[in-house]
């Protein structure tokens, strides 16, 4: 079998759990389904899972423990935006293609639109809102300001989070390496040149800080 230390290295503070049956379903009116069907009374198809126990989950978001009711089928981006009010995470394609919903889970970039909220219980979620520490901007955020990195900036939170993940993997990337590491995000304004300027500036700033 696989060596336990390999596993531990990968997923530090993860606690084992057996058979954690699904959670909410019957009263999911307060959840994302409520957002999409505001007052339409069309909720019933979403409330049909039988015998499920309504349950709160505790999410570790931006260093805070957040208690929230989550239907099992809800994606993390939906929970963050429509239940926790963290609308910095954008939904572009909702198909793991555009990268607008990029966030960090245990310090690694993921598409928030394509992971179940229930899958990330017990793991550290960081969104764009969690980058600022004690009133001080993250080097990547500062780099955006310095370089004027984006045009319409709908993709910006996703790119910023990708850059944070990039610097973690490769603190000193070449422009080409940065392009490769940011290849999971799309900018419909086509502002890639300035975005890469931003990435290089971010590497510079974070290197200076380290």
């Amino acid at each position, binding site marked *: *079998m*696989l*060596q336990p230390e*390999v*596993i531990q290295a*990968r*997923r530090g503070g*993860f606690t*084992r*759990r*057996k*058979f*954690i*049956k*699904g*959670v909410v*379903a019957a009263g999911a009116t307060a959840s*994302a*389904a409520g957002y*999409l069907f505001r007052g339409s009374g069309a909720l019933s*198809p*979403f*409330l*049909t*899972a039988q015998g*499920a126990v309504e349950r709160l989950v505790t999410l570790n978001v931006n260093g805070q423990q957040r208690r929230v009711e989550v*239907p*099992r*089928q*809800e*994606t993390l981006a*939906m929970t963050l935006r429509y239940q926790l009010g963290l609308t910095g995470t954008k*939904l572009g394609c*909702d*198909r*793991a*293609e555009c*990268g607008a919903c*990029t966030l960090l889970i245990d310090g*690694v*970039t*993921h*598409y928030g*639109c*394509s*992971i*179940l909220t*229930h*899958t990330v219980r017990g793991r550290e979620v960081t969104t764009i809102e969690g980058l600022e520490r004690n009133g001080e901007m993250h080097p990547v955020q500062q780099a955006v300001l310095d370089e004027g990195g984006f045009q319409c900036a709908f993709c910006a939170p996703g790119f910023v989070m*990708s850059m944070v*993940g*990039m610097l973690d993997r490769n603190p000193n990337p070449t422009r080409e390496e940065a392009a490769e*590491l*940011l*290849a*999971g*995000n799309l900018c419909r304004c086509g502002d890639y040149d300035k975005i890469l300027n931003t990435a290089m500036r971010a590497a510079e700033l974070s290197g200076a800080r380290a």
Partner: protein
Amino acid sequence: MAVIRDMIPPFELYQPAEIDDALRLMDQYGDQGWVLAGGLDTFDWFKDRIKRPQAVIDLAAVEEIRGIAAGADGGLEIGAMTSLTDVADHADVQGRYPLLAEAAGLVATPQIRNQGTLGGNIVQDTRCWYYRSGWPCYRAGGNICYAATARSMNREHCIVGASRCVAVNPSDTAPALVALDAEMVVASSSGERTFPAADFFIGPDIDIERMTVLEPGDLLTRIALPAPWEGARWYFEKIRDRKSWDFSLVSVASMLRVEGGAIADARIVVNSIAPFPVRMTAVETAIRGREPNEETGQLAGEIAIEGARALRHNDYKIALTRNLVKRSIRDAA
């Protein structure tokens, strides 16, 4: 009314921590159960309401099948739930199986590689959009192939191995694993079975609704790599429309064992030209004893496309296959 394509319809969610619990749940739900690994393919099916399982069995907590460890006889064992990033970045994989590291590193985007698993990449379903539109094609249990007619848009479809269905296998790691003689370890409630990677993938002539030997209740748990060839040369190339995110149009993975300037043994595997990764055994035989040069590559390329038959829009794949096979021998390093 337009079809809603964002919120996912409800399902039961299970998050077992032990593999046996997962297998029991899979048996319990049968074809109404859905095994969730990275989920990057899963959620498209769910959002499009084309697959609507009653229960989803999320393997994220099954630590037993995550991680990379030394295997038997100097080989390496990779848990199916290991992320593609972990495979591509692992020192042992990079050092001893660079072909696999390269293939895993070329999958989709960084975010997808961080979440997508090696197991998921291997068993992923075809990208044929006629099938993914939820139409009743052969692969969906129906009796028609929408992609093979004279009027179909079939630029991405197959040139060999078709049988009624002309979809292709899109996996990048699959051809690499076939070239590395990997073994797939499959668990089910009745025990564990092992398949050579080349036999793990099946064509529509054998089962038109599945890409692999996995039946409901079967779970790919580990990928066992044998000790690599000493001083082998390798080559991997993935051709795609976009340099990021996209699936391959044709990909090639090769391993060459060169002794005294001549090819002593070879594995040449091409993917995305058939419903399964195609091991070019005729090419392997033909190039044995020859020097891995332009001439041998040319010969190999010509042999590789023997019997290939283009659909209306994909004859470019024949030329592409010929040239990639040529390069995979000439440029292997």
